């Protein structure tokens, strides 16, 4: 099983720290491309039955954590809203971009 994380709108040269269970990742200079609405897509290997997925944008003082218990592929979207909040959604349906 895999977790697909799509960083969508509101990113502008942002550094994003992602933590999935014990693994930590850092993504730099994320900017939204408005031709498809994506800043970056990442794929995480969901080996863990249940774990916390944590997003942290220290420069903007934003963070969010969601607990995930994957039993099939999951699709996570992350948006920075105009009022500077981190908005996260989870779906088992793949989202279409274009």
């Amino acid at each position, binding site marked *: 099983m895999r977790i*697909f994380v*799509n960083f969508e*709108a509101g990113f502008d040269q942002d550094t994003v720290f992602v933590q999935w269970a014990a693994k930590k990742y850092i993504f730099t200079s994320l900017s*939204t*491309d*408005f*031709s*498809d*609405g*994506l800043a970056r*897509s990442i794929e995480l290997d969901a080996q863990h039955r249940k774990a916390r997925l944590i997003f942290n944008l220290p420069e903007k003082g934003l963070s969010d954590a969601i607990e995930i218990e994957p039993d099939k592929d999951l*699709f996570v979207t992350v948006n920075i*809203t*105009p*009022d*500077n909040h981190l908005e996260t959604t989870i779906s088992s349906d*793949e*989202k*279409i*971009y*274009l």
Partner: protein
Amino acid sequence: MNNIDPSAPDMDYTTQHDRELSVEEVAAIEGYSEDYSLYFIGSASIPPSSPGSQAESAVNQFHETPALEITKTNSQLQDKRTSVKPVPGRPIPIKTIKRRVSGRYSNCPRPWKLELRVDVDGYKPAKMFSGDFFHSSGSTQSHFGSFRVDAPSISVSNSQLTIIGIAECTWNTSYKKVRVVIPIHNIYQPSANANVTWYTLTNKKGAEYVCLFESSYFRTIQLEQDREEDVAAFTSYDTGSLPSGGTSRTLSVSKAYGEAGIQIQSAGTANVIPTSEANANHKWNNAELHDAMETHFSLWKNDPHWKVWLMHANAHEYGTGLLGIMYDQKDKQRQGCASFYQTINNKSAANLRTQLYVNVHELGHCFNLYHSFHKQYMNPPVPNRPGSLSWMNYPANYNNGSESGAGAYWSSFPFKFDSMEIIHLRHAFRNNIVMGGNPFGQGAASDGHATFMENIIDDSGLRLSVSTPVYVPLGTPININLALENISENSKQVFMDLNPSSGLTQITLQKPNGKIITYHPPIRQCINPDLINLESGQSINESAYIGFDAQEKQLFDMPGTYQLIATYYTPGGDAIRSELSQIRVNAPIDQDSEDLAELLLGDDQGMLFFLGGSYSDSLRKGNDAFQEILSRFPENPLTAQVALVEGLKASRDFLKLDDRNNSYLVKMDESKSVKLLSSLIINPDGKFGLTPQNVHNAKRCLAGMKYGNEINIKPIKKKVIAKA
């Protein structure tokens, strides 16, 4: 005309008249009447057996649609080719099919070439016109500038159409008034020429052009399509195959654009691109797509031009979730895009529908169109339209306030662009749309200029009203009242917030010098707007100060007549426009009023009016000016606005920072506040620029102090008012 300004007259130009005539005088001399109005006729209006049957067969095709219908009595009828017999003693109305006038016109370049786009009839007429000037020198031609007339006056007689308006130009000129006259021909006559004349605002005549009708399309684009091996490129889809919101028809990509007035011509060489040009896993990345474009796009060049490349490919490295991309975002951008067939390859109706949608959508990005839900990220931004049933929305992101999601989108989607996008496609300044022009997102909307026109169709059931002061002295801080009323029989879901600072209401104004400005508040509130149900007859109201703009600074800084339109965006993406309002700013009549105007029109003062007062050191000049106004002009009606701001400021504590960033409190000054605000409540009608809400705020503030409650200015905007 001359060599540096295509709208100005030639230095040797002389008119045949012995004096300059105003446009209105010319109109009077030529005897224009307004007996007839423009409207579009559908195919149902044309009898199949009539002489217009040839036109009937083409009536649904954009480029051949006759659009003017003028009803005359048989005694007036001049056209002998009509076979209707008169009935003695009783005139029978005979319909004469008139040739449509909308479309593209151009002149013979000597040295200026004018390409004119007239948009007054046909499908979704924007009731405006626009154009481009090109400068010819020898065998070369270069683009000089674009212009657009957003809100012209249109008059139609039985013989000609006259359109007059003030142009927004990309070049500096004093010749801003444009008159276009087009004789109205019937469908048996060739299309008429457009006669274009430029004037100054004082009606001094400038350059004249005679432009020949070129096409019913507003623009023509060459499209080169290549495909990856083993990919069957999309050709057409019958929109009646699955439930939808539009009429059933067979659409190709070019037909979809043709309906918006954009002609797509196939061009270049159709290549088959080997999959081996993609990376090792046979999935394209953006760099490879760009490289493929430079290699296979036979018409490509790193310059602005009306040529675009569409590649039908199998898969992108981003995965199956990516159906298409406009990857060309370096150098001269927006010249190429790609669609990916990996998951939509078989020819089921749903897949063909998606293929059509993806291809039209990606090319929309090449025309510099953003997603409906990303409009706020454009430069300049406009409000998002998540409820837009447009090619540029995502089905899954569709949300009109009452329904949302892909199912709702597809069942209502008419396979069209929305109105604002159509205006961009037809009338955007050239560099804001041409492939290879401005970077993606820059100038992607008309910055609200398109709002400076009346609604063609408004079935929203909502009415937006704007109340403005009619006559004010120079320097008056301009406050407006906005009211949104449900004029339908049913409940309507609307956003509560009407304040332009929230971005849900846009104010567009035209200054006396013709410049059109979309109001940008100095501080934009980032809000998640509350939704309410507005019952039939109910309204919401709000007042707002709009005198100070983030970019233009003081907006009402010159005497003359200002025109203003407000546009409110509903959760469903409808743009509700107000009627045109006018504000006449009078010039100072004496030295005192001149001094007062000067004291009121500073940048700091504008910001203080916007903020409702501040002790900030960065606004010290404004506060000093306010103190001078209060002491020098205590009885002047304009001083009321200053008293209001100063009174509100004194009514609340203010936390300041000193030089070392330590905070300290400036305590409220109750006696000063009471003195200033009390003066406003007596005879408020005589005080220029004060709105009822201003007075209400003053009263509320005074009441708060009197009873010792927490003092705060709580606007009454959230109150829903039932119709009296």
